[in-house]
């Protein structure tokens, strides 16, 4: 069953049109990648979904048209956006960040259990539980951003460049944990990633964007095999 469906989505920053018509769909529990060069519109596609950029076209989540909805309303429907540049709340401790993630939930026991789950998923965070977000390393901040999204118990997670600025081994660790999260929680994921090889460890299908449009869509296996695509879009 389709959880999220984008049809010919356009988006603007002021007068500048960034998305010319992006379509994609994420099935329930599935993981879909958005690949492409810098400026292709990957991040903007996620922002259109979470309501942080003015968008046109159709964005339907679980039967509801969410285009133009406020970010907190979108979050309340079950979409957790992990923004680029890590989005940790710098002045709050790790535990406080996790509690903010659970803002819309009322089940105290479930929240405590999920904090425990996040600390199990990212053991580095357990050691830093009382540290402020700003005192964490880049990798730890990324882990915290993902963990905060987990705390919302979302049905869909929007992951933006989780590997950005991380050492290769750290990036791999983060993706491994996210892979485990996907398997154990069944959260559907829409993953923006410059590093295509990392993305392919997580997603089943992917779409390649070029100047705000879909250039190509296929399964991970299909895309991996296309040499010219690799050279043109995936940087290697």
């Amino acid at each position: 069953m389709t959880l999220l469906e984008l049809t010919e989505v356009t988006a603007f920053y002021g007068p500048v049109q960034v998305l010319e018509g992006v379509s994609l769909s994420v099935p329930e529990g599935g993981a879909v990648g958005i690949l492409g060069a810098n400026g292709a519109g990957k991040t903007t596609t996620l922002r259109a979904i979470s309501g942080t950029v003015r968008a046109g076209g159709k964005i339907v989540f679980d039967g509801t048209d969410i285009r133009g909805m406020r970010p907190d309303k979108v979050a309340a429907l079950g979409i957790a956006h992990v923004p680029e540049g890590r989005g940790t709340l710098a002045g709050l401790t790790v535990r406080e960040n996790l509690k903010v993630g659970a803002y819309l939930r009322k089940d105290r026991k479930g929240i405590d259990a999920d904090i425990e789950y996040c600390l199990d998923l990212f053991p580095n965070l357990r050691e830093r539980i009382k540290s402020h977000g700003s005192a964490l390393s880049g990798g730890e901040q990324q882990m915290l951003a993902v963990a905060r999204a987990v705390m919302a118990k979302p049905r869909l997670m929007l992951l933006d460049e989780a590997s950005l600025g991380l050492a290769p081994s750290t990036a791999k660790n983060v993706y491994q944990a996210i892979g485990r999260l996907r398997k154990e929680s069944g959260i559907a994921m829409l993953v923006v990633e410059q590093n295509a090889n990392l993305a392919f460890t997580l997603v089943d299908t992917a779409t390649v964007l070029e100047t705000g449009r879909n250039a190509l869509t296929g399964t991970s296996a299909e895309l991996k095999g296309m040499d010219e695509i690799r050279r043109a879009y995936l940087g290697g």
Partner: protein
Amino acid sequence: MGTFIQLVIDGLSAGSIYAALALAIVLVNQATGLINFAQGGMAVLAAYFAYTFLQWGVPLILAILLSVLVSFVLGAVIERFLMRRFERGDPDTAVVVTIGLLTLITGLCGWIWSFNNLQFPSLFPVQTVNILGAVVSIRSIGTTLVIVGIMLLLQLLFLGTKLGLALRAVAVNPQSASFSGLPVGRLLMVGWGLAAGLGAVAGALIAPSLTLTPGMMDSALVYALAAVILGGLSSPIGVVIAAWMIGVLENLAAVYVPFIGYDLKIAVPFILIFIVLIVRPQGLFGRKEVVRV
């Protein structure tokens, strides 16, 4: 010894007034990331509201509570319809807007209620008690206790409640907070409303001793900002202790340091600020912001 204790206690009482305003500034800063220079002006406006309610025959305590309530709404409205336009832009612009707001409110108060000094009754009886040879007014004790109570409530709000956590999260990064479902706009309104309500308490506490004028809070605002810098923007307890320190030290300096005297005592908080900014830029009790890239 009697003089010394007298000076300390008077200083604590004056410091409590600065503390009330400083707490309101900290509250807005924790909830929005801004310094609101109009906080003093809003407190004066609240005192005028209370004054007007008194004229209508409302009992004092009820008049003050009503002015707190009206201020809460007014603070929220100012956030929604004025500050909202500037929150996404340059923070410096927003701060300048608050300075403009201060001028506007002062002018409005003068226009509506005149620039003459108005008598404002005190919540506490005028009697004095004798403590260790010092004559202490019950008003001073009452003021100080109210401030301690508010300080503890604020500390509890920020560190012990979901609302406080949400307010802080929104101040740090509104967009990122909204991704966790926090209604950013509503929380900012609540933050401004709470600060304005707190300012109204400060106004009601200070008006009896200074008499009510549109510029009543101007010098208190200077001291409050000094307390905020000294104590650290992130610490309610810190700013209250800093405000008391300022109140006490300026009193002591006026009497015991001959070249300062009463004329120069306003320089005392600034000398303190210089020293603290050099030695501990985050304030005595503030947390250092560490930014890693």
